[in-house]
Structures are given as C-alpha cells and as structure tokens.
C-alpha cells in the first residue's frame, strides 16, 4: 500500500470523527424540535405537511401506537412500490420501454427497498424505468432511512424519560428526518456528484458509434439524485447493475470519497445524537469507540489480505473485480464501510476479493450491522448488544443489571434476545436449507467453498438488511426471490418491533440514581466488555459457517488448491 493510499484512509477516518459531533448535534436539535440553521426555510414546510395530513405534532404515541404507525407507513410504501414495479410497462417515464417486473422479483425488490436492504436481484439499466427508480426506489430510500432514524430516536426517548407512557410521534420523527437531515444532505451531494460526471437526465439512452465503428448504447437516467440518498440513507441500491463500480455512478476519486464518507456519515453522527438525547455525551462516544475499534480491526485484516495475496497468481488477480481509477485501497475501504454499515453498495466485486477479505465483509454483516450500521438501525442494533453486555456484566458481579439508570429486567432481555435470534436464525437455517436443495445450489457461480460463501453471504445480506452480494450468484429465481424477501422482512421488523417494545418498557420505568454498585457504561472497561460481547456472540453463532466458507477457502488458497 502506498503512502498516498494510507493517507486517504487516515483522512477518511479523521473526517468521520470530525463530522460526528457537528452533524450529531444538529440532528439532536432536529429531533427535539429546536431551532436549527435550516428552520426558517423548513419549518413552514414541516407545518404545512402536518396541516395537510391532520397530524398534531404535540400528540405523542405509546410504543404500540408508534409501532402501528410505523407498520402502516411501511405497508403503504410496500403497496405503492409493488404496484409501480408490476405496472411499470403501462406507466410513463419509461423511455426504454421496459415491461412490468415479474411478480416474485417485484416482491423481492419491494421487500428489499422497504426494509432498507436494497438487495437487487436485477440489473437496473435493463429492468427498471426512470419512474420506478425515482418514484419507487428512491422514495423508499428516503422513507426506510427515516424509519430507522425514528426507531432510534424513540428508543433514546425511552431511556431518557422516566415513568412516561409515550415514546414520541412517528409521523413527526419521520418527517423531520426526511426534511431536515436527508433532503438537504442528499441535494447537496447529488449536485456535487453531477459535477463529477454522475448522470442526471430523463432523456433516453444515448446511441453512439465507437472509434472503431461499432455501435454502443450508453445508459443514462436520473442517477445522481438516487445515488446521493442511496449512500446517505444506508440503502445501497445502485442505479446501474454494478453499483458504484459503474463509471457513470461513481466517475472520479472525489465522487468515490464523498460517496464513501456519506456511507458512514449519518450512522456515526447518530452516536453523538444518541448521547445528547440520553443526556450523556460520554455514552455516545463510548459506543462510537466500540464501533471505530471494530471498523479499524476489520479494515486492517482486509488490507493485509488484499495487499499480501498468497500465491503469485493471486497477486496479479488482485485487480480482478476492481476499477483502475479506484485501486485496491479504495475498494477495500469501501467494502469495509459498506458491510459495516448495512449499506450494501459496492465499488468493487466482493466475490473477487481474497477469501479472508470477503470473510471479514461477511462477518461484519453477520454481526448484525452494528459497526456504525444503518441509519438508526446500526445504533439500535448496537444497543441490543449494550443491553446484553449490561445483563451479562450484572450477572457476573451479582448486581441488578441497569443501563442509564433503568433496570434491565427479564422482559427487556427476552425482547433483545428475540431481536438477535431472528436474523441469525434466518441466516443459518436459510443457508442450511439452500445448501441441501439442488435448485438453490444451482445458483452458485463458483465451485468449492466459495460457492458456500455465496449462499451464506446472500442470506446474511438479506437477513441483516445489507444488500451487497457475491454477485455471480443467481438470485433471480423464485426460491431466492421469495425466501430472501421473507428474510429481509423478518430481519427488519423482527428487530424493530422488539426494540420499540423495549423503548416503551424502559420509558415507563423510574430512573435509579447511580450508586457505588452501578456499573459504569461509558468508560474503557465497558468499551472492552461491549467489544467482547459483540465479537463472541457473533463469533459463536457464525464461526462454524465461516469455517466452512471463507476460512476454508483462504487456507486452501494458501496451499495452492483451486476448484
């Protein structure tokens, strides 16, 4: 790795750390309804939206009411997106004349975008009309991100309040997330991306004659506006098939750097927002520290694996599935960021990474997307592990587990365990089922352990709402469209609903003042405990599967074995 590439990585991490308190502080003010710099412009719009929909922003909801509004909101999104995809052939803004999307693929795509996964079993430039991308997918990019942020804010309120019956108003939280956070950032990023060469037009594809006299069709479309929110909202669904490896989706090194930064920007900043909302900035930074340690550790392993490829042939193959303008360093950094973040966009093909690097990417996903994670979802995912860590620590020292002054009782622990088990069960049971079902096995593009990795990656990506893939895998079969679609829905709402229940239960409790026996959750000891819990729980759950897939593949590669 050259000094220049190393400097890029250092700059990236430094900017992420620097942006966290700035954006985090801004978001904390937004969600508590305080004045911010954009208030003069956006408050009238916000109030207009409330008036038009009959929403009283002063009315708050119990966790059940909040969850109901959330589910209705997402169900409406599901219905509209599904309709847009299936009826695509008869709707306008379809200059290439793509027909309606087949039913199960439409189901899978709809489930995917509503759950912030953005798993794409299709190639955008030959399947979707501009209307489907703009009004269907991009809208869900905004709304699913807003949903994730809302759940986090509700959970923070549950911790911050005491003896309270309400956790907030879903409509208000979602609207504020969209208007004050996502739209401004996306608009700015989109225009900068266009300046770098990302396309943004409603014209039809351009037919050109190449230098050597052949004809070539250049796909275009309203990509920049979608790419901006794809990155900022931890969505990941590319406009084109090869996502941000495609030169019209990610042309320059600056567009690459900004897209990578946007990947983790909001998730990282939300740790500071969380700290503000619960009244302890140290707590927010402690969680940020855990995430940063996991990020740097994973990144280090991936970089070594990619730069120090074993046999001589693999050294030359290090650029397979990578773009010249990006190189190895940027491809690895993006791969680490996107699998930490539940984003799932790619700028290189993960299937062609060395097995160890691909294994780290897979492990990041399996851990539950808690290394910064998705917007909102990453932090409430990490809070699952915080509750577990507090619980385990309390058991070890014989004290009642408590977090931020709230007792953690059997009720909360049960809910948290459901939230951990459901996605993990989907991954392991789903991959197991697929690996004994011939039709499912036929989707593999690689022989040997890499084929198993493809299957594992698909189920992990769906169940933990990441969306990236080992892309040789043929996911556009009825089996995978249906089963992965279900995994995405279970992985998303099977975590959201328990966490909202936890929010409600915590909100109702009284706060206990700290005593000599209170376990501090904002110091280095807790950071270490939390790190251990995340790695051990994830490791124990998935080590056997990883041993058969990426670990076996790397060891065999080192021994010169091929398949």
């Amino acid at each position, binding site marked *: 790795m050259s000094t220049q590439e190393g400097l890029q990585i250092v700059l990236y991490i430094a900017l992420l750390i620097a942006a966290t308190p700035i954006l985090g502080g801004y978001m904390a003010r937004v969600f508590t309804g305080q004045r911010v710099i954009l208030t003069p412009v956006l408050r009238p719009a916000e109030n207009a939206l409330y008036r038009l929909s009959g929403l009283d922003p002063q009315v708050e909801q119990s966790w059940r009411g909040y969850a109901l509004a959330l589910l209705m909101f997402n169900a409406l999104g599901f219905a509209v997106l599904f309709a847009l995809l299936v009826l695509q052939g008869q709707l306008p803004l379809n200059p290439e004349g793509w027909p309606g999307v087949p039913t199960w693929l439409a189901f899978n795509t709809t489930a995917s975008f509503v759950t912030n996964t953005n798993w794409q079993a299709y190639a955008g430039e030959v399947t979707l009309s501009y209307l489907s991308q703009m009004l269907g997918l991009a809208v869900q990019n905004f709304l699913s991100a807003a949903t994730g942020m809302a759940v986090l804010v509700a959970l923070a309120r549950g911790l911050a309040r005491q003896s309270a019956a309400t956790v907030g108003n879903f409509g208000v939280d979602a609207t504020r997330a969209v208007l004050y956070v996502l739209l401004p950032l996306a608009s700015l990023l989109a*225009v900068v991306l266009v300046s770098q060469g990302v396309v943004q037009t409603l014209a039809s594809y*351009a037919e050109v004659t190449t230098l*050597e006299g052949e004809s070539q069709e*250049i796909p275009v479309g309203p990509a920049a506006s979608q790419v901006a929110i794809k990155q900022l909202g931890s969505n990941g669904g590319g406009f084109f098939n090869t996502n941000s490896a495609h030169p019209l989706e990610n042309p320059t090194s600056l567009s*690459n750097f900004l897209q990578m930064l946007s990947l983790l920007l909001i998730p990282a900043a939300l740790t500071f927002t969380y700290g503000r909302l619960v009244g302890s900035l140290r707590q927010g930074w402690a969680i940020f520290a855990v995430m940063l340690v996991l990020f740097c550790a994973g990144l280090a392993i991936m970089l070594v694996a990619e730069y120090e490829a074993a046999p001589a042939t693999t050294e030359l193959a*290090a650029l*397979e599935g990578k773009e010249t303008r990006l190189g190895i360093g940027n491809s690895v950094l993006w791969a680490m960021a996107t699998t930490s973040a539940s984003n799932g966009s790619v700028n290189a093909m993960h*299937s062609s990474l060395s097995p160890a690097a691909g294994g780290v990417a897979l492990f990041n996903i399996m851990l539950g997307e808690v290394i910064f994670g998705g917007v909102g979802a990453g932090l409430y995912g990490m809070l699952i592990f915080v509750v577990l860590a507090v619980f385990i620590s309390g058991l070890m020292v014989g004290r009642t587990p408590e977090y931020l002054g709230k007792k953690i009782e059997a009720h909360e622990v049960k809910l948290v365990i459901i939230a951990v088990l459901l996605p993990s069960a989907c991954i392991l049971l789903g991959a197991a089922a697929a690996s004994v079902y011939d039709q499912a096995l036929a989707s593999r593009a690689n022989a040997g352990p890499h084929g198993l990795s493809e299957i594992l990656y698909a189920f992990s990506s769906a169940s933990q709402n990441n969306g990236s893939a080992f892309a040789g895998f043929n996911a556009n079969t009825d089996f995978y469209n249906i089963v992965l679609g279900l995994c995405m829905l279970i992985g998303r709402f099977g975590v959201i609903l328990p966490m909202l229940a936890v929010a409600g239960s915590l909100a109702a409790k009284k706060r206990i003042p700290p005593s000599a026996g209170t376990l501090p959750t904002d110091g280095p000891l807790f950071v270490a405990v939390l790190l251990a819990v995340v790695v051990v729980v994830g490791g124990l759950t998935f080590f056997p599967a990883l041993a058969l897939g990426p670990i076996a593949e790397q060891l065999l590669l080192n021994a010169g074995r091929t398949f």
Partner: protein
Amino acid sequence: MLQTFKTTLLIFVALTLVTGVLYPLAITAAALGLFPDQARGSLVSAEGQVIGSKWIGQPTRDPRYFWMRPSAVDYAPLPSGATNLGLTSEVLISQMAARAAFWRETHPTQAAEDIPADLLSASASGLDPHISPAAARFQIERVAAARQLDAAQVAELVEAAIEPPQFGLLGQARVNVLLLNRALDALE
C-alpha cells in the same frame, strides 16, 4: 386506528411527492442547468461526431489504438457486469492465463513479466474507461509500429494523458483510453 391510518396515509403521500417528484425534478433541473455535459453522460466528440462517453470503455481490437482492460461484458453496457470469480476459481486462473497469452502474442517486444496486473484482470463494471500508466506504456511500441509513428511521440501523448490522483491524494493515477486514442487520431 382509522384516524392513525388516515394521518399516516396522508403523511406518506406528502413525503412521497416531496422525495419522489419534487426532489428528483429539482436535482435534474439543477444538473442540466449547472453541469449539462456531465448530466447527459459526458459524451465525447471527434470531428463533429459523437464517439462515445468519457466514462464508458469501448471494445478495441485495432492495433492502431490503445487497448482496454479485459471485460466480462466486452464493453457492452447493457448491463454492466464482472466475472465475480473467486481467487480459488480454476475458471479465473485459465482466463488469466488466456489474457496473459493474448498480451504476450500481441506485444512480442515486451517482456511477459512486465504485463501490468490491470491488463490481466477484468474490471468490476466491465466498462472501465481507464488503464494504469504502466498499462499504457506497455502498449506504446505496438501502437507506434502499427501507425508508423515515432515511439517517442506516442510516449509523449501517453505522458500527457496520465491523470494523477485527484488533488494529489485521492485515487489512482489513470489514463483514459478513449481520450488517448482520440488524441492519437488527431496527431495524423
């Protein structure tokens, strides 16, 4: 319950219109107003004819032009794609051997060990418009011979075409093959 549904429905519709209609149309208008060339695909012309996009590689087989990286879709953009082969794949190894043989046979004056890695590997998009500076230099002699030009002249063009990392820091040095080939044609 019904009241919740009504409110949620209306908020959903409102946010859909804002994010799905207002936002993309506003961005499209801004894009076409501020950066029209980029917004439309950065199309490149030579002698008044559009010859392609700056960002989309083209299939090149004529020995008078610089050639591109291997591509899993042979530079046909619909759809973009990669090989997605893992490093233990025998298919990948035989593909790389075939690529190495191709570059050796077409560049007999160059040493086989000198074939740069990017010329032996397929890109992620299949449409990569760039090659590394080393890959461009590798091909200078062949291009100069095919065009009966002085190798030094071609080398000059290549050096001029090398784009350094952006701001001296971001990304890799690269050569845009289409722009280089266009400059070559303009020489004559």
